[in-house]
């Protein structure tokens, strides 16, 4: 029997601690500056604000404020320095500071908006392209406004679907596939809290509206060591804090969704509460407005409490609840069959501290996440699956000159429950896990930046410890002025908690979360990403990114070729997702356009003993070609957005035909000669067919009326402007074809008090 922790993992940990101690000691004799940067108007942290020190002797030190607005500079040699803190759209802050040996200074810097610049700031900020590196797209909330939605507010879900490599099997169901990874292989975090099924049943919407978003880091692969537990992608969403200066809020109404948001400064400049309620209205309006039923109900509730406890510490508590229900096949009035319900709950608290005695940002956090899923297949067959997770983590971010270290420890425990009426199959289980990660960022000269990392994870259930090395790199061939940027990422990933889902039926979004089988290899993946970005003109950027994901031990539902519509069992398959994303992005003050093409292929290798699958096959989310065109015009208070999406057909299993199956179990029973049987479908080889291509044009126009303290936005738009009959599902058993949304006009009104 092999020991749970190989000798070299212990030795690596020891070396890491020794190196860290030595580096810290070397820095201790120099001065340090830390603090936070906030918006002087509402005390919002200004993530990414530039903090620069220029010494009299010419030495320069700099850093950027993190998501909480905190920054730290260490290794400051004694002397006088010019401090400059700047952020786009704000008047820079300057001061002169003198440091002595080992001096510790803390600053609370409030930037004020530069009114002269503010008129152009909307356009200016939107001109910033999404920050991208290998696999990563860092999304600012303003970017979300480019994607036209049938709603006056914006949402991360609608925007993600305009990015290459993101595939949804339809405009409903809340399933998002990222570069070959399935929804249950995506790690979705909201302020650090895992959210198991965050996308609403109507595909435009998620639990992440633009109004709440501070920023989102979306890794389509190749994510660093601070993320774990999933093998495909990470969507890490950070919400903003409530206004700490005055009470503000907004209310909106549109055919799909209505919302109310309020922000209250509980203690001025220190403590705020942000609350949001969104609830669908489409299920009530669709009959009269659209002339057809749209029986989906969804919504979410969000509350965030944030407090600056001191200039170097803060506390945030976040709560989220979502609900979704409906028959994903869209059959109105059939509440007894194929009816899906899911409810997320997530609660978390984070304490962030920048201690005076060390240049380390410390963060302690606990999160509780829960998902309740129900699926009523028939009136007497309801399936229930629950997952409850508790996560705790303690992370540190060291700032050692040009080297940044990020490391931490974490632990989690997860409970699963599954029950199915009508069949004696009920399960309950618990798994626990824990481990640590370490990530370092080195700038080797002015051209190369390396971010190696290591994640060590231990699991219960007799699963061996996993050690996942990761590496991210960026190379600027001509230094910071380079027009070309090469990025790459590589890593190994393991996943203990798996989601079992009937991927062959897009209307069945019911997911059973469970622990990976005991004493068997965990699902795992290897990612390799290489990308290049080049600025062709100051306002045109071309990027290309190739990726490879090798998957192993992935659970996949196996259908009998002959039997009826039920998963026979799950088999473990190996697979590979590979592809190339090309993206051309144009930014002008009043014009934004992005054209992207994604060439991808996902193939699964079935187990050798399972002859029914035949050879390698493409799973139902294998979209080979994808084109996204996103265009936004802005002129004064007017904005026009267009999004055209094209996706080649997804695989499906074609059939030989239908037949009636008779029951023969007794040679003395000759009833088969005249019996009528049960209809079965005879399936052909798995996934050799392709559905028709998908394409759709959405258009949205809006006009903003700005008053002294109120902003009114009117929106009008149309989804599926040329009324393409995009197939959502072809039901073999009823012969019925269910299409995605037809042409739907929309109009919305939003009133915002600022």
């Amino acid at each position, binding site marked *: 029997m092999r020991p749970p922790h190989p000798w070299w993992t212990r030795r690596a940990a020891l070396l890491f601690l020794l190196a860290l101690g030595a580096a810290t000691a070397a820095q201790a004799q120099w001065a340090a500056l830390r603090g936070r940067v906030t918006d002087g108007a509402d005390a919002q942290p200004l993530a990414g604000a530039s903090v620069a020190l220029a010494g009299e002797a010419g030495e320069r030190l700099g850093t950027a404020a993190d998501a909480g607005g905190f920054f730290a500079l260490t290794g400051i040699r004694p002397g006088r320095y010019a401090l400059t803190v700047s952020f786009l759209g704000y008047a820079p802050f300057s001061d002169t500071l003198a440091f002595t040996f080992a001096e510790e200074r803390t600053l609370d810097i409030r930037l004020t908006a530069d009114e002269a610049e503010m008129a152009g700031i909307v356009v200016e900020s939107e001109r910033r392209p999404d920050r991208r590196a290998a696999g990563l797209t860092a999304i600012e909330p303003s970017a979300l406004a480019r994607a036209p939605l049938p709603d006056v507010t914006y949402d991360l879900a609608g925007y993600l679907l305009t990015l290459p490599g993101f595939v949804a099997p339809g405009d409903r169901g809340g399933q998002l596939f990222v570069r070959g990874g399935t929804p249950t292989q995506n790690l979705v975090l909201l302020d650090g809290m895992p959210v198991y099924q965050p996308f609403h049943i109507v595909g435009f919407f998620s639990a992440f509206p633009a109004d709440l978003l501070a920023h989102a880091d979306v890794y389509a692969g190749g994510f660093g060591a601070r993320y774990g537990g999933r093998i495909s992608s990470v969507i890490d969403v950070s919400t903003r804090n409530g206004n700490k200066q005055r009470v503000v809020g907004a209310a909106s109404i549109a055919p799909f969704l209505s919302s109310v948001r309020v922000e209250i400064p509980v203690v001025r400049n220190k403590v705020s509460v942000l609350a949001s309620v969104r609830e669908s209205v489409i299920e009530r309006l669709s009959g009269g407005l659209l002339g057809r039923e749209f029986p989906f109900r969804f919504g979410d509730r969000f509350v965030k409490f944030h407090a600056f406890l001191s200039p170097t510490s803060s506390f945030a508590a976040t709560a989220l609840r979502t609900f979704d229900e409906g028959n994903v096949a869209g059959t109105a009035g059939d509440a007894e069959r194929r009816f899906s319900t899911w409810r997320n709950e997530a609660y978390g608290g984070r304490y962030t501290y920048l201690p005076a005695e060390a240049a380390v940002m410390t963060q302690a956090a606990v999160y509780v996440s829960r998902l309740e899923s129900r699926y009523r297949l028939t009136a007497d067959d309801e399936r229930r699956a629950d997952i409850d997770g508790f996560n705790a983590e303690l992370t540190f971010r060291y700032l050692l000159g040009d080297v940044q270290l990020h490391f931490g420890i974490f632990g989690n425990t997860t409970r699963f429950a599954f029950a199915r009426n009508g069949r004696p199959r009920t399960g309950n289980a618990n798994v626990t896990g824990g481990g640590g990660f370490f990530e370092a960022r080195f700038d080797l000269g002015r051209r190369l930046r390396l971010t190696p990392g290591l994640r060590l994870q231990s699991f219960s259930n007799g699963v061996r410890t996993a050690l996942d090395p990761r590496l991210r790199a960026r190379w600027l061939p001509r230094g910071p002025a380079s027009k070309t940027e090469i990025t790459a990422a590589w890593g190994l990933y393991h996943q203990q908690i798996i989601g079992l889902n009937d991927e062959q039926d897009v209307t069945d979004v019911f997911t059973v979360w469970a622990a990976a089988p005991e004493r068997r290899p965990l699902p795992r993946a290897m990612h390799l990403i290489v990308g290049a970005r080049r600025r062709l003109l100051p306002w045109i950027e071309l990027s290309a990114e190739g990726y490879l994901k090798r998957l192993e031990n992935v659970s996949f539902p196996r259908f009998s070729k002959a039997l009826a519509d039920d998963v026979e069992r799950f088999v473990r398959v190996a697979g590979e997702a590979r592809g190339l994303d090309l993206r051309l992005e144009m930014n002008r003050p009043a014009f934004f356009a992005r054209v992207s093409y994604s060439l991808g292929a996902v193939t699964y290798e079935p187990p050798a003993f399972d002859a029914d699958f035949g050879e390698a096959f493409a799973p139902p989310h294998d979209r080979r070609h994808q084109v996204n065109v996103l265009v936004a015009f802005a002129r004064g208070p007017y904005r026009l957005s267009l999004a055209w999406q094209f996706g080649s057909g997804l695989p499906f299993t074609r059939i*030989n035909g239908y037949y009636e199956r008779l029951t023969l179990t007794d*040679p003395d029973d000759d009833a088969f000669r005249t019996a009528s049987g049960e209809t079965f479908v*005879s399936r052909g080889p798995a996934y050799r067919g392709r559905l028709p291509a998908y394409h759709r044009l959405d258009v949205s126009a809006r006009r903003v009326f700005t008053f002294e303290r109120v902003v009114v936005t009117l929106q009008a738009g149309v989804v599926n402007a040329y009324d393409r009959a995009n197939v959502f599902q072809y039901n073999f058993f009823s012969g019925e074809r269910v299409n995605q949304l037809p042409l739907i006009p929309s109009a919305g009104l939003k009133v915002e008090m600022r």
Partner: protein
Amino acid sequence: MRRGMRIIACCLTACAAALGLAACDDAVAPLLDEPEAFFALHGFLDTAADTQFVRVEPLRASILDATDGPLEAVVTSTHLQTGATTTWRDSLVTLDDGRTGHLFFARFRPLPGGDYRLTVLRPDGRASEATTHVPEAPAVQPAPPSGDAFNLMQRVTLAGLTRPVREVDVHYLVSSTLTDSLRTITFVYRDAGRRGAQGWDVDLFLARDLRTIRRRFVFANENDTTLTFFGLSMSFDLPSVEWLAPETPANIAHGHGFFGAVGRHTVSWRLDAEAVHTMGLVDQQP
């Protein structure tokens, strides 16, 4: 600027071309162009029957299409050891739900131990096929009887059998010593036995059966008390392997359903003379 415009123009042209191509077709083609299965067939060969039956249904293109039409198919069976081929005849039967179905039949008695291939052939030459092996009668290995007059029993092994037999009946051929009126008395053992080292073991409860025989037997008079024992036999059904998992048949190619066989066999053996005597019978076994 001009270069940027050229890039934009290229992209828009590519998008327009993609749209033009993609917009052509939005139809779903659920049926395979080259299907791999053609018929559903349900039936079995029975060694005890003079006429064999199998229901045949072509795979339908639509789930709603359950029309009663003619079936263009030729059904044949071939005894693979000899190559003898039998053509089956179609008959229309009224099903339980009022529709009509195609019940093919052939007048022959399958040979135990034979392998048969059933072929359902379409006019275009495509066919569904199923093969089955008709179970032959196993060799019988009777163990020496054990026990005394009150619990005498005997284990009989059907050699080489690894799967259950069903509908086991045990037949005693006896007569009154006085009248010589020969009678066969049958005991139903149903799905008796269990898997043993040499085959399928069936335990016969001879003493218990004899007590029942004595109660049932109609004697001529008070002096008629002795029975003569002429022999012992056991009949049983031996289904083919397909009956073990009838919902997942592996013997049908290019089709679905069920096709199996059943051997209905009788085996006999000579009971040990001492055991006959212990039971108080007069041994007259041939």
